[in-house]
């Protein structure tokens, strides 16, 4: 095929050659200045003529030119055009530099349209594909961290395949998802998270967008506001991530690329554990069975004897003639857990892509294998992805293209949250500090049992990871078929159908031996089927109405169907031990809403196993350009949602935007200011509800004997729901100086989300714990800026590009219900008395909980009041302890390149915002942390006051023993463990080298690149002790809470890519 293409090219050249009298033939090679790689497809023109050709796949060209030609012009999308005098030589080699002005000029916007960035009245930002493939993240969402202004990404934990949360310009929805819509080649895809991980435990199955394979991404454009995305309807209100996949069209001939990444992971930050005192309480300990038969051997705290080498019977002491011997009571080392419990994770990713194409057709087939081993024993994620992207011009007017992506993901994931099935719960909060984890491993491996240092509350962590396994498998097909027909040269019809279908199968095993499930083995299966289908028709027109006026029009209609089927079946009591199948159930299987019967905390009741909804839409959009420097655009859309009552089902919204390129308007050329543009836009959007939110229901439960049971469901629905609404204004300026070497883009915006459909938490005294209402106004105001600087001359061999972004967002909850009865809304809860709330008049995401009692005024004003037991008292009136929303976020990326060597360094930061940490709360309570060492022997008089019987105060004079003091200090009021969540992180370092072409001459290899990459390398600055402040249970809105997290990982490795 390659040969025939080459022949075709020759033929084309030949035809051209015949048309002109030719005098000489110039040949040469065009390479990329930064990579030294040959550039295929570069247009080579003899200046002043129409004689020209394109470079071949190696970047070589040969062109017969008229004798009058003195100069060749080389041009290629994304590169600065270059003119080269040919002189007398018949060989001309040129290097092209990327054009900072051209780069990003054409962006893919809503509904897959390619638009010039200059014409847009709103902010978009894009990232090229190689950014994702060199420093690979298992979850591609994480690759966006620190790169884009106003885009905040947080990864939940260090477990393989854990979910990532991405929020653009602040949370827009009080209760629902604030996650952006992901669109691949015009196809919206599902990004659900079926994780049940929360404060009380559960599994994080990741978010579905993590199925996107970085190797198949050509580019990613982020549409940040409702203004950019209102054509997607309400789903675009949180922003849209538009992904264009690689296609075969661009390659001429056959191209093969191989990309391989190997990386290693280790915990980034772990708590600072003490190594002075071991297990026990009151300074006493002696082991018999770890369940209370010895002295304090059932305790999971470290208030025991000093680790001074005294002789005590311990869990790992030898038993001689039935008597457990006393062995030295010593610390296994401060870093015992960090060094020996965590394993070195590694991730191997291999991609092979073959592409081929010509002017009429192209195809690209890509296969990727990901194999990740977690930092916890026996945890992994494995994914195979096949992507086929093809297109063919059936006729000059009729084109067909398709993109089909199949992925299979296998995961074995650890338990999360505050639960005994999360191994971190004991490691960092409840632990005997004399325990050597290596002995736990050998105990498990030699006996296969759950024998542990504590058999009362905790499982042997190796037994949990080895036996209480959580396995999941997801098969997913994302596919679309697009037909386009060019009615005229300016009017095009498009029909597209898209399907995103996946089946997920989860298996959870809880052996009877675990302390959480005392009766018999417990096994649960969960099956999830998700389908999103869109059928779309579009008519687009683009025409120059006059010489100066260009008109771009679109009308379309779409039907979207979403289907969810989800079922859980549990066999709570298995007959044959260790045989985890439903068929092995000894009693009745438990399904649906009946999990109240089940001791396994990882089972959640599924209220609606079947959820179907449909949205029909029609929409239109127009953009008028005047002399390519003034633009005015507008769009309208009407949706009909199945989820709303008939009277409110239809809703209309739209927006307008305008921009003026000032430099072009006033004809400014070749000055200090190379480009200036102002833009502004206004947009509204609307949204339907979830399925089945209109009618109250009764739920069932396990029968009482043979008598069925029912109960009024605690959530009240609402037959009068209206659509949710958003309105947004945005204005921005883009300027570039010194021939585009300095660029600055600043955008200000104001978004009001109102009439939000909220399940408002109500006092249970209403009879319900929540009520669905159109309630909740949330406003987001913010400013974001992107600065790009190229300090060095674009023609110099050494290149330096700096890109910095900054975003500050202020959001405020202004109202709930119209009558003003509701003032607060609970987003989530820590399980230990801290709510994450939306409160009227406050920033979204308030951490609401107990504070210390303090002296209101007088001499001791502000001091903490202690109780008679010498511990701080809690104020019964709860208050806002902080907010998780940051004041500002930002990132800086520096890229250096020199003769094929590239270095890229990204640092990002989040400043402001707080979090509450359960790891610290219980780590202090249990005496595991180093911060509990002061006062161990002599006790502590806490800093503060005592209240006298007459109401006056005196300095605290009650000495509490350390165990009582630290217990009260950490547990009495949550204020104790609220920390500043600010951080500065060295997010990414990439050092790459592209082998010079000359080394590869004469081989079949066209290019070789190697790079060393590190991600999440260094927590440069942080205020939260012992934890990565960038943490959460899942990717929901209840952020700002940390509970016995699996540490986030630092990863480092290398990447090799070949092109053949």
């Amino acid at each position, binding site marked *: 095929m390659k040969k025939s293409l080459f022949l075709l090219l020759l033929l084309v050249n030949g035809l051209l050659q015949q048309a002109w009298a030719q005098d000489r033939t110039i040949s040469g090679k065009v390479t990329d200045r930064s990579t030294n790689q040959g550039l295929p497809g570069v247009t080579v023109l003899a200046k002043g003529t129409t004689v020209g050709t394109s470079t071949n796949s190696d970047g070589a060209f040969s062109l017969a030119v008229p004798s009058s030609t003195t100069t060749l012009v080389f041009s290629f999308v994304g590169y600065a055009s270059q003119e080269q005098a040919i002189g007398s030589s018949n060989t001309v080699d040129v290097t092209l530099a990327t054009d900072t002005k051209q780069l990003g000029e054409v962006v893919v916007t809503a509904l897959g349209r390619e638009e010039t960035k200059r014409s847009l009245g709103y902010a978009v930002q894009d990232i090229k594909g190689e950014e994702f493939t060199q420093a690979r993240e298992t979850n591609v969402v994480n690759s966006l961290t620190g790169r884009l202004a106003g885009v905040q990404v947080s990864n939940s934990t260090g477990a393989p395949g854990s979910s990532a949360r991405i929020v653009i310009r602040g949370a827009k929805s009080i209760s629902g998802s604030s996650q952006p819509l992901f669109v691949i080649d015009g196809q919206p895809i599902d990004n659900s998270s079926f994780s049940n991980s929360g404060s009380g435990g559960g599994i994080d199955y990741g978010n579905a967008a993590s199925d996107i394979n970085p190797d198949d991404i050509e580019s990613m454009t982020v549409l940040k506001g409702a203004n950019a995305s209102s054509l997607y309807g309400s789903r675009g209100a949180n922003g849209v991530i538009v992904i264009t996949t690689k296609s075969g069209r661009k390659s001429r001939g056959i191209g093969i690329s191989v990309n391989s990444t190997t990386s290693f992971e280790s915990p980034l930050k772990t708590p600072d554990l003490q190594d002075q005192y071991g297990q026990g309480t*009151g300074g006493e300990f002696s082991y018999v069975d770890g369940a209370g038969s010895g002295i304090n051997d059932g305790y999971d705290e470290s208030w025991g004897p000093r680790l001074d080498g005294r002789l005590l019977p311990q869990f790992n002491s030898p038993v001689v003639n039935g008597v457990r011997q006393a062995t030295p009571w010593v610390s296994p080392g401060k870093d015992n857990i960090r060094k020996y419990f965590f394993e070195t994770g590694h991730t191997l990713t291999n991609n092979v892509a073959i592409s081929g194409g010509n002017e009429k057709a192209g195809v690209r087939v890509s296969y990727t294998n990901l194999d990740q081993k977690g930092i916890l024993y026996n945890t992994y994620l494995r994914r195979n992805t096949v992507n086929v992207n093809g297109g063919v011009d059936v006729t000059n007017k009729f084109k067909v293209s398709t993109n089909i992506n199949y992925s299979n993901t296998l995961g074995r994931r650890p338990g999360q949250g505050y639960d005994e099935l999360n191994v971190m719960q004991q490691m960092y909060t409840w632990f005997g500090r004399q325990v050597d984890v290596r002995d736990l491993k050998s105990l498990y491996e030699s006996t296969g049992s759950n024998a542990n240092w504590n058999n009362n509350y905790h499982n042997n962590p190796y037994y949990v990871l080895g036996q209480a396994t959580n396995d999941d498998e997801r098969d997913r097909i994302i596919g679309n078929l697009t037909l386009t027909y060019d009615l005229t040269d300016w009017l095009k019809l498009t029909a597209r159908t898209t399907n995103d279908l996946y089946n997920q199968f989860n298996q959870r095993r809880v052996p009877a031996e675990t302390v959480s*499930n005392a009766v018999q083995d417990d096994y649960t299966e969960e099956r999830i089927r998700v389908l999103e289908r869109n059928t779309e028709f579009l008519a687009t027109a683009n025409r120059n109405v006059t010489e100066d006026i260009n008109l771009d029009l679109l009308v379309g209609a779409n039907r979207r169907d979403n289907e969810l089927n989800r079922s859980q079946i549990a066999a709570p009591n298995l007959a044959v031990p260790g045989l985890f199948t439903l068929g092995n159930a000894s009693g009745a299987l438990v399904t649906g809403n009946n999990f109240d019967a089940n001791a396994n905390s990882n089972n959640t009741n599924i209220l609606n196993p079947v959820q179907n*909804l449909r949205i029909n839409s029609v929409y239109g959009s127009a953009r008028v350009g005047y002399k390519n420097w003034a633009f005015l655009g507008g769009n309208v859309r009407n949706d009909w949602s199945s989820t709303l009552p008939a009277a409110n089902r239809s809703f209309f919204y739209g927006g307008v935007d305008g921009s003026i390129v000032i430099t072009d308007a006033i004809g400014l050329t070749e000055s200090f200011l190379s480009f200036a543009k102002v833009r502004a836009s206004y947009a509204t959007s609307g949204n339907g509800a979830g399925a089945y939110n209109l009618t109250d229901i009764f739920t069932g439960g396990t029968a009482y004997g043979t008598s069925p049971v029912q*109960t009024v469901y605690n959530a009240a629905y609402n037959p009068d729901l209206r659509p949710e609404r958003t309105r947004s204004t945005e204005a921005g300026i883009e300027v570039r100086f010194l021939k585009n070497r300095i660029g600055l883009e600043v955008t200000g915006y104001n978004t009001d989300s109102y009439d939000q459909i909220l399940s408002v938490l109500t*006092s249970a005294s209403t009879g319900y714990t929540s009520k669905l209402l159109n309630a909740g106004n949330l406003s987001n105001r913010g400013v974001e800026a992107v600065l790009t600087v190229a300090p060095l001359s674009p023609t110099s061999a050494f290149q330096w590009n700096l890109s910095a972004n900054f975003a500050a967002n202020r959001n405020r909850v202004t109202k709930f219900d119209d009558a003003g009865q509701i003032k607060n809304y609970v987003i989530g809860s820590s399980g230990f008395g801290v709510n994450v709330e939306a409160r009227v008049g406050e920033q979204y995401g308030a951490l609401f909980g107990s504070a210390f009692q303090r002296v209101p005024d007088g001499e001791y004003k502000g001091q903490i009041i202690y109780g008679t037991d010498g511990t701080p008292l809690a104020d019964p009136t709860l208050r806002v302890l902080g907010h998780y929303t940051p004041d500002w976020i930002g990132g800086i990326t520096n890229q250096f390149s020199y003769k094929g060597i590239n270095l890229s360094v990204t640092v990002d930061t989040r400043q402001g915002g707080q979090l509450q940490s359960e790891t610290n709360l219980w780590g202090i309570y249990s005496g595991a942390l180093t911060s509990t060492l002061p006062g161990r022997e002599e006790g502590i008089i806490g800093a503060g006051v005592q209240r006298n019987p007459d109401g006056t105060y005196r300095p605290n004079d009650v000495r509490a023993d350390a165990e009582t003091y630290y217990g009260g200090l950490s547990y009495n009021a949550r204020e104790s463990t609220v920390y500043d969540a600010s951080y500065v992180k060295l997010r990414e370092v990439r050092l790459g080298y592209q082998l010079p072409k000359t080394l590869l001459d004469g081989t079949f290899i066209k290019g070789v690149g190697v790079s060393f990459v590190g991600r999440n390398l260094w927590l440069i600055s942080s205020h939260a002790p012992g934890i990565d402040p960038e943490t959460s249970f899942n990717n929901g809105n209840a952020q700002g809470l940390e509970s016995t997290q699996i540490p986030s990982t630092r990863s480092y490795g290398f990447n090799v890519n070949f092109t053949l």
Partner: protein
Amino acid sequence: MISRKSSLALAASFTLALSACEKNLDAINSNPNNATQGNPAYILTGAERSNISRLFDVPINQDGGELIVQHWAKVQYTDEDRYAFRPGSYQSIWDGFYANGLQDFSELVRQGQVSNNPNLQAVGMIMRTYFFSVLTDTYGDVPYSEALQLASNVLTPKYDAQQDIYTGMIAELKTASTLIQTSGAEVGGDAIYGGDMAKWQRFANSLRLRLAMRIIDANPTLARTTVTEILNGTTPLISSNADNAQFAFINSPANTNPIYTNRLTRDDHRVSRTITSRLSRLNDPRLPIYADPAQCAAPASTGPDSTGLYRGIPNGLTNANVALLGPLCSSSKVGSYFLAADAPGVLMTYAEVLFFKAEAIARGLITGNAGTEYQNAIRASMAQYEVPAADVTAYLAQPGVAYNSANYKQSIGDQKWIALFGQGVEAWSEWRRLDYPQLRVAASAVGAAGGKIPVRFNYPANEQTTNAASRAAAVARQGADAITTKLWWDRL
């Protein structure tokens, strides 16, 4: 302009197609998963089970009333035994009783009205009142008159003063008793009395007696009128242990007694030394029923234990102090009777009615022999546990058990406290009202208890989020939201 026309035609045809689809949208949104109608029999079974489970579950009973009145004590996670109750417990009690109890029982009252079934209405009212009384006896002022009115868009119900709640509850029980037609429409799904309306009527009147006696110190007028009316000799009352209001837990998942369920995974509770030493001193034949023998010996260092094999432990130990007592097996667990999967969930007993009768006589509300009723009450309590008659007689003959007419509160208070073992909430209320037996504050009580035994629970934290103004008004009226603030009826 052919193409413009065609694009218009295209758009028009889409619009037509869409409007044709619109009628499908209703069908798509009809819920295939859940019932939108409730069957009263199913609701009654479910509500009885879930609420009576909650009444004996950890937060309000095992880590609440039973610890506070020193029937039980804790050997692990001793926080509650030192009066450090968990915020989550306050919340689950409130949410559970209001949203899963009162709401379901009110639904039955509503369905009873709609379907013209006064018996269903009455059962809903009696059960609703029972759990309103549990709530107000636990927290004090709580939402009552505006509670359960979400359909009328009351999102933030006011808290009623406890005296108004009591007036309302006493009136509602009378209404319920009047509504009952013993040969009227059937009530299905009743796991307490199997739909026997005569027994429901006895329970309604007995419960009204309990509520009236509860307010005797705070609203003597209403209490006196009500008690004399009920004890007039003709009002049907619980008149044998066969009439006891109790729920039969059964040995199958989700239907087991919550104490049994707790013991499947936890072993934190022991019998309190306060009650083991009292029962031991009185040679009470209920000791081997209330407590199991210790499974191993205590270390010699702890000294001889007066209870012999039945070794209760002191309340309010710190972890360190528990350790000094010796291994966990050296102290007595709660008696196996109460740990059985099918141990009954007792709402009200014949013994309680008799104790109230004795007290009413002692207070001069009615005539009779208080000592006789007191002895009958003890007999009824013993009969619940099938203590042989001879043992009961021997027990009653002891001077320590004899009725003391000079201090009826002490006699009745002490014996009622013994009889109410296991019924933590009611035992706590009656101890607060009678102030007998005289209990010592837990050994290492936390500072927040102010050196006293708790007399109420704090409002749940979410009320400060969801109903802040109403709660604030209640706190202003009732006193600080603290476990030391006395309830309205707890005058003495």
